[in-house]
Structures are given as C-alpha cells and as structure tokens.
C-alpha cells in the first residue's frame, strides 16, 4: 500500500464532499457533505502520520480532534437547521438569502 492510494481516496472523498456542499439544496445534505470533507482530511492525516513515521503521532491525534470537532459541529448544525425549518417550513438553502447585499 503506497501513500498515493490514500491520497487518491482522500482527494476523491474531499471532491465529492465539496461538490455536495456547493450543489445540494437541502441543508441536511450539505451538512452530510461537510462530514465527507472532514473524513477525507482525517484519512490524509492518518496516512501522512504513518508515512512520515512521526514519533508523537500528531497526525492521529489531530484526526481524533477532528472527529470530536465534527460531532460538535453536526450537533450545532442540525440544531440551527431545525430552528430554520420550524420558522420557515423549509430547509432549502436557496431560500435563505437574507444576506443579499
């Protein structure tokens, strides 16, 4: 197993996540896409940790941090989306254009 396989999987996952974030209209799906991007980053972290033989395993620890962070982020994100849905009976991000200049 070479490092290049992991990078390819990571890049593929990240691209799919990014595509989802930019194109999906449902806010829940956007959140799921963000999770994909974070997973891609985690794969890269762990892979490079092994590859560089880091004595402190900082890459793996970073990955743990990111997992914890992602959990928190999803919690808050779902809560926000829930509140928006209750207020507007919809979770369509195209309708959320209050920041229009």
């Amino acid at each position, binding site marked *: 197993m070479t490092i290049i396989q992991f990078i390819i999987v990571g890049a593929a996952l990240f691209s799919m996540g*990014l595509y989802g*974030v*930019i*194109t999906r209209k449902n806010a829940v799906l*956007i959140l799921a896409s963000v999770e994909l991007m974070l997973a891609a980053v985690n794969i890269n972290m762990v892979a490079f940790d092994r590859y560089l033989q880091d004595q402190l395993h900082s890459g793996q620890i970073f990955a743990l941090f990111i997992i914890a962070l992602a959990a928190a982020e999803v919690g808050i994100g779902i809560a926000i989306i829930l509140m928006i849905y209750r207020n507007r009976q919809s979770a369509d*991000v*195209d309708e*959320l*254009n*209050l*920041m*229009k*200049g």
Partner: protein
Amino acid sequence: MTMHQFIAFASQIALAAGEEGATEGGHEALVPGITDGPLVEWAWLIVVLPIIAAFVITLWGRRMPLKGWEAAWGAIGFVAVYGTVLFIVNATQGIVYEGTVEIAQIGDMTLEWGWMVDGLSIMMYFLVGVVGFLVFTYAKSYMKGDVRFTWFFASFSLFAGGMLVLVSAPNLIQLIVGWELVGVTSYLLIAHYWEDFANVDAGNKAFMVNKVADAALFLGAIIMAVSVGSFSFNDIIDVVVHGEEGMLSQYAFWAGLLIFIGAMGKSAQFPLHVWLPDAMAGPTPVSALMHAATMVTAGVYLLGRLFPFYIDEAAMFAGDVRNIIIIIGGLTLFLTGFLAIVQKDIKKVLAYSTVSQLGYMVAAMGAGAYTAGLFHLFTHAFFKGLLFLGAGSVIHAVHSNNMSDMGGLRRKMPITFWTFIAGTLALIGIFPLAGFFSKDEILASIKYAGGNGQDVANFILILGIAGAFVTAFYMTRLVALTFFGEYKGHATPHESPRMMTYPLIGLAFFAVTAGWVNFPGVYTGFTTWLATRVPLIGMGDHHAEGLDWALVLTVSPVVIAGAAIGWWIYGKDRDTQAERDAFRIPVLWPLFDNLYYIDDFYTSAIVRPTMGPIAKVVLWWDMYVVDGIVNGVGLGSIGIAKAIRTVDENVVDGLYNEVGAGVDGLGSSLRLSFTGRIQQYAAFSFIGVVVIAVLFIIL
C-alpha cells in the same frame, strides 16, 4: 544650606554675639531648644489654612449654615491656637526653624517657598491669630445682615492669610507675594461698601499710595538679591554679619533706603500716611485688624527682619539709613498726632493715632532698638484693636461715625466704656498698662541712641515726649466727646451683643497685661523670646537694666498733663459743634484741619496732572495707536479668514466629496456580487483556494 550646617553656623554666631554682648551691653541670643520636630514642621498650616478657607468660602460659603463665617473663624481660630502654642513653647524653650520647599531653579538662583518659625515670626503668628480670632468673632455680629457677608469673610480670611504669608517668608520673594496679597485684599476690604463712590476712592488711594512704596521695595529687593546672589534673608544676614566687602556693602545705602520706603508705604509713614485715615471707609473690624495686628505692622516687621542690615555693626551697610528712618518716624509720630485732635470722625481719630504710634515704632527701629520697636508693635496691636472694636461697638449703637452724634454713652454701654478706658489708658501710657512699658522702652532707647553718637535722636526724643502729650490730649478728647456729657444723637443706643463685648473684654485683658512681659529690671522675657531668630545672632540693640526714672518722671507727668488739659477743654458738655470746637489756635487749626495740605498737594501735583494732560495723551495713544493696531490686526484676521474659507470650501471640501463619491460607486458595483447564497460564497472561496494553491505550485 542644610539644617545641620545652619545650626552649626547659628551657634557659632550666637557664641560670637554673646562675647560681644558682654562688652556692648547687648543681650545674649537665646540658645534654641527646638530646631525640628512636628511642632515646627507642620507650622505651614498656619499660613495655608486661612487661604484655603478663603477659597472654600468663595466657592461654597453661601451654602454653609452660617454663610461661610464658620470657615473663616475656624481657620483663624486654628492660627490663634497654634500661634499661642508656638508662643508659649518659644517662651519656655526657644524655637529656631526654617522650613523650605523648592519651587523653581532659575540659573543659579533658587526660588523657595518656606515658613520661618522663630521669635519674630512667632510673635506675629500669635498677634495675627489672637487679635484676628477676636476680631473675626466680633465681626460676625457687626456684619450681620450685610449684603456681602460671605464675600466679606472670604476676603477677610485671605487678608489674614496674606499677612501670614508675609511674616512666614524666609526670602524676599515670598515676602513680596504676601505684601501684595495684603495690599490687594486691603483694597477689597476698604472698598467693601462700593455702592458709595467715596469708599471706592479710598480703596484706590490705599492701593496706589502703597504701590508707589512697593515700587521702591521691589527695587531695593532686586538690588539686595543681585548683590548677595540670593533672595533668602538668611544669606543676606549672613553677608551682613560676616561684614563681607562686596556689591552689597557698595549699594547698601540705596538698598536700605528703598526697602525703607517700601516699609513707609505699608506702615503709613509721613508723607505716605495719607491712605491710612481714608482706609477707615471699610467696615470697622477691617480697621481693627488692619491697624492693629496686620498690614501696617508689615513695614515694621520688615525692618525687624532685616535689622542686622540696618544696625550695621560692621559699619559698612545701611547704618546711615537709620538716621533717615528715625527722622521719618519722629516726624510721623509728632505731626500726625496733631491731626487726630481735629478729627470729627471717631475712627479717623484712631486712624491718625495709629499712624502716630507707627511713627514711634519706626523711630525705635531707627534708633537701633529692635526689641523696643517690636514690643510697641506687640502691645499696640492689642490696645488699638480694642479701641477700634470699641469704636465699632459705639458706631453700631448710634449709627454714626461722627462724634457730635455721640456723648453720654458711658451709662448706656458700660462694657464698651470700661474696656475703651482700658485701651485709652494703655495707649497714652499710664502705668502699669501695656503702652506704658512699650512707649517708655522706645523713649529710653532713643535717649540711649542720642547719648551714643546718633545726634539726631536727641531731637527725636523731644518729639517723642511731645507726641506722648498729644496722644493723651486727643484720646481724652475722644473719650470725653463719646462717653461723657449728654447724648446728642438720634438713634437709641444700647450695649452691643455678647459676641461683640466678649472680644472687647479679651483684648482689654491683653491691653492691661501685655506690657508685663518686658518690665525693665523685673522681667524681660520678651527680649529673649524675640532673640530666637533665623539666623541666630545677637541683635546688638541696647536694653535698659531698669526703668529710666528720669525719663519716667518726665513722660508720665507730661501724659497726665495732656489728659488733664484735654479734660479741661472737652470734659465740659457743650451743645453745638461750634462750641465744641471753641479751642482753635488761629494758624495751626486750619493747617491741621486740612491735614497739612498734603492730600491737596498730592491732588494738585500728582493726581490732577495725571488725570489731565497725561490722561489725554494716554487716551490719544490708546484711541489711535493701540486701537489702530488692534483694529488692523482684526481686519487682517478677517481677510485671512476669508481666504482660508475659500480654500476650505473648494479644495478641501471638494477632495472629501470626491473620495466619498468614489467609495459610493465602488460599493454599488461590489454590491452585485453579494447574492446572499452561501453556496455561491463557498464556491468562490474554493476557487480562491485553488488559485492560491496553483500560485504556490508555480512559484
């Protein structure tokens, strides 16, 4: 000079003076028991509190329960207590202390603020405090219902504070500051009833006559300071005591004369005495304090402070000036006494009496009698303060200053009468009241000076004895016209309230006893108290071993004769003013009545020319030259302002408007990119990241 060096120096001088004193008949300087410690280090409060009180009254006086009087009274009461404590401690242990705070350094000259605590200053703290306290107490009743009650006590407190600044001064600069403070507040107080234009004139007169003398004082102080290189009295006296040849010895006569002219102004010496009788325009408590413990004593105090310079033991300083001083003093005491005889206003009699008594003090200073002059200052403060307050009590009762509206008040105002009698006897010098001892010591000192080479003193001695006669005469007249015979006024006289009579009793106590502190041959403590001085040196003045019986037996009968003649002429009750003034010597009466034409001379020789041609020239200069310059500057400013306005409106405003419009346009176009769609933003930021990443790879 640090304190330790100073004490070492002082004790050397004290030893030297002691040796000299044994041969010259001078007294040994009291070796000080106290040269530091909290008692003297906190003495600056004496000076500062009345001034703080003055500002507090000015700002918040009207809101206080007693309209600001309590602040003034509290501050002067503090001075009285502190002054008394210092006085007693000095009498028992001796105090010599000089505290200084440096305020500025100009070249080699250091400007210092300080407070002297020595025999001379302590005596003044005591006088200003005690007499001031009694007068402030009295003034509360006297000024009751006055329109400017609060303001009166603010300026009165500042007046006392100014005097304390003056007497605490360890250098000429601070002395002049106090001197001017006293001058300006005296103007405020004399012109207190400014609704009447005559009072404003009196205030102006006092201020201007004093200013003439002040100019001389400044010149003298500058000569002295430049010669010695320091404003400090300590350094000046140091040069004098060591008899150093130099600039000071070269210009000593002029410095001494100019400083004496300054003293003549404040101490109202002939021919600069004209302001003092007019100063009676102020409220009576002001007259009492101004003519007793403060202001007029400033000149005598200054002569005392610089006394070694005038006594001039090295015979190279201002010894010659003393002849001028004694002549001026002698003329003052003799000439102004006569003017008191012809006055109709009770306060003016006392005013001329004050001038005359100041003449005694100055003559004593001129005769080289440091203690005698200051002793008379000390006793005079009490009995003259008493007489003025008594006169105020009478005026309060009859609502008139004129003695033809009085008479027969001895039964209606017994306390005022008896205290007034005590003051009168003390003033004319009846044994054993205060004035007897002080006046006798002055005459004895003048006699001694006459016998020891100062020839002019013999002549002044005759004037002094004649002055004692005149004093007895006019005071008897005053008492006879005021308290005896029938009442001729229109108001209903009654004894004054207790707030006014208690101060009278307090001052009467001092008027009787103050002389006993210097009883020649019995107890001469006062001499020793004054001898603790910064710097600690023997004054080299003469002190009698006992009473000079020949002199006492001459002066006392003369005084009694004066009183008897006065009673013979004025004791009988007369109805009309013409009858009262029956005693008129053809040539002399108009001369006295017109005050020797001195005021007329000043009016026609100085005031009129100043108000006439000089004023016109000044007016022309003012209207055409000064106003022209002012108008020119004004018009120029307007022109410049107009030009600046044009630039401002077109260039500066234009620039700002353009910048604003540019930002506005930019904002409008950028606005289009803000769609409010978060996914679009995310896409843009992803593109940005890609661009940056590509740039990183390429570069």
